[in-house]
C-alpha cells in the first residue's frame, strides 16, 4: 500500500474572507504499479491533491501515508519522499534554469546525493526515454531549444530521479498531436516498467486508451473511482460535473441509443472498430 490518503482536507487562506476548501475529506488508496487517471473540472482540487501527495503542501486535516508512514510527521525523511515521488507540473519547461541541458537534468539526482558516475548514467537514461540525443544536446543551453525540446528536457530532469511514483499534471498541455503521442508512449512504457503513474489530464481519449483506473473529483470531493469503462459509462453524471467522455464512448452511446447492439464499457477505438464491423455484418 504505497500511497494512502486519509480524510484529507486542505483549506486555502483559513480565517480570511477568501477561505476556500480545495480538497474536502478525500480518502484514496493507490497501489504500486497503478496507472491512475485524475479528472475533474478546473478548481475541483486536482492540483492541490497532488501537491499534498508530493509533500509540497501540508494538510489542514487528515494524513498522507506513504508505505505506512505519515509524511507530515516530524522526522520524516524528506529525501526519501523526493526519491520516491517525482512530479511533472504543468508547463514544466518553465522550471529550466541551468547553463546546460546536462546540468539541468542532473540537478535532481545531485540533490539526492547521487554519485557523479551514476548521475551521468541516469541523465543518459532520462534523455533516451525522452528521445533527446545525449551527445548532441547535453552541452546546449536549455534556453536555445524549441518549446517541445524544452519540455522533454524538463521531464527528463524528473525522470533522472528514478521515482517509483510519477505524478504528471496535464503533461500534454500545449503540445501538438505528434508531441502528445510521443509523450503518452513514454508514460505507458514507464508504467510497463513498474512505475506508478498518476495522470491529471483533460484528455479523456488518452485515459481511455491508457489508464486502468480513473478517479473523478468534483467540488473538492471524490465523485467516482473505478475502471475507465465504469467511469465513462456514467455520461450524465460526468456532464453534470462539467466533464466530457471519450469520443469513442460517445459514439458507442449514440449507437446504442439508435438501438444498435454495442456492448457496454467500450472506450477504446480498436474495440469499437471490432464492434462496428460486427454490427455492419463483416465485409459489405
Amino acid at each position, binding site marked *: 500500500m504505497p500511497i494512502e490518503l486519509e480524510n484529507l482536507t486542505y483549506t486555502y*487562506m483559513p480565517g480570511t474572507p477568501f477561505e476556500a476548501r480545495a480538497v474536502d475529506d478525500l480518502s484514496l488508496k493507490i497501489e504500486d504499479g497503478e496507472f491512475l487517471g485524475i479528472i475533474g473540472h478546473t478548481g475541483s482540487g486536482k492540483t492541490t491533491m497532488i*501537491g499534498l501527495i508530493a509533500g*509540497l503542501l501540508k494538510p489542514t486535516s487528515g494524513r498522507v501515508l506513504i508505505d505506512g508512514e505519515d509524511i507530515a510527521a516530524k522526522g520524516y525523511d524528506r529525501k526519501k519522499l523526493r526519491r520516491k515521488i517525482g512530479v511533472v507540473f504543468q508547463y*514544466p519547461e*518553465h522550471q529550466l*534554469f541551468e547553463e546546460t541541458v546536462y546540468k539541468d537534468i542532473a540537478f*535532481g539526482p545531485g540533490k539526492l546525493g547521487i554519485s557523479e558516475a551514476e548521475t551521468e548514467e541516469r541523465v543518459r537514461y532520462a534523455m533516451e526515454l525522452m528521445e533527446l540525443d545525449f551527445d548532441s544536446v547535453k552541452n546546449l543551453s536549455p534556453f536555445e531549444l524549441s518549446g517541445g525540446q524544452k519540455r522533454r528536457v524538463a521531464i527528463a530532469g*524528473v525522470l533522472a530521479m528514478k521515482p517509483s511514483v510519477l505524478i504528471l499534471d496535464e503533461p500534454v498541455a500545449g503540445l501538438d498531436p505528434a508531441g502528445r503521442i510521443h509523450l503518452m508512449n513514454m508514460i505507458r512504457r514507464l508504467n510497463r516498467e513498474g512505475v506508478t503513474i498518476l495522470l491529471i489530464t483533460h484528455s479523456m481519449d488518452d485515459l481511455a486508451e491508457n489508464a486502468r483506473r480513473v478517479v473523478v473529483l468534483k467540488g473538492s470531493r471524490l465523485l467516482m473511482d473505478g475502471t475507465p469503462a465504469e467511469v465513462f459509462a456514467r455520461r450524465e453524471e460526468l456532464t453534470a460535473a462539467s466533464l466530457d467522455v471519450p469520443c469513442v464512448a460517445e459514439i458507442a452511446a449514440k449507437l446504442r441509443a439508435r438501438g444498435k447492439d454495442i456492448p457496454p464499457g467500450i472506450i477504446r477505438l480498436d474495440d469499437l472498430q471490432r464492434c462496428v464491423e460486427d454490427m455492419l455484418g463483416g465485409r459489405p
Partner: protein
Amino acid sequence: MIKNITLGQYFPGNSVIHRLDARMKLVLVIAVIVLVFMARTVIGNAVVLAFLAAVIIMSRISVKFVLRGIKPLWFIILLTFVLNVFFHQGGNELFSWWILRVSEEGLISAVRLAARLIFLITATTMLTLTTSPISLTDGLESLMKPLKAVRFPVHELAMMMTIAMRFIPTLIEETDKIMKAQTARGAEFDSGNVIKRATGMVPLLVPLFVSAFRRADELAFAMESRCYHGGEGRTRMKVMHLAGRDWAAAAVVAALIVFMAFGF
C-alpha cells in the same frame, strides 16, 4: 493568496474621500505633511488630530484598518519615543539613572515626535486606502505632465507602473509554481547558511527572470498589435475632473495652514 491584496492596500468604497480627484488628494497629502510639521503647540497638534479623525470618519473605513497601516512602523515610533525620553539633552531633570536621563522637556518632545510620526503615516495611509492604484498612477501622470517640457518620460513611467502593478500578482503566482516544481526536484529554499540560501535561489530566480522577459516580449507584440506607439496622440477613457468637493477639501486644508501659520 497574496494576490488578493492590491498594492498599498486599497480599500474600495464610495465615500466622499474616495471620490475626491486623485490629483487633488496627492497635492493635499503633501500639504497635510507640511501642516503636520508646522504644528508646534498642543492646540496645533490637536487640530491636526481632529482633521485626520474627520477624514477617517468620512472615508467610512474602520479605525482598526487604518491602524494596520501603522503596524509595520510601530517599532520606529517606539524607538523615537524611547530615545527622546531617555536621551534628550537639557530641560528640567526629573530623574536619572546611569546614562539615562528623563526630563520634562524630553517627555514632551518624545510625545510630540511620536505624534508627528503617527500623523504622517496616517495621512499617507489614508491616501492609499482611498485611492485605487490606477487612479494614483493616472493622478501622478497628470501632475507630472509639465515635466514633459524637459523631456522627462512621464507617459512611459506611468505605463511601466501600470504594467508592473498588473503583473505583480501574476508573478507572485508564478514564483509559487516554480518553487513547488524545484522543491519537488529536491531544492531547498529555507535551510542552510546565508551563502547556501543565496545560491539556492538560482533555481527560482533564473526561471522567473526568463519567464518575465518572455512575458514582456509577448506583451510588446500584443501592445503593438493594438496600435500602441507611445504617448503621442493617446486619449483616455476616464477623464479626471475637479468637482465642488475637491475645491472644498482644498479650502479646508488651506484654511488650516493659515491657522497654523499664526504660530500654533
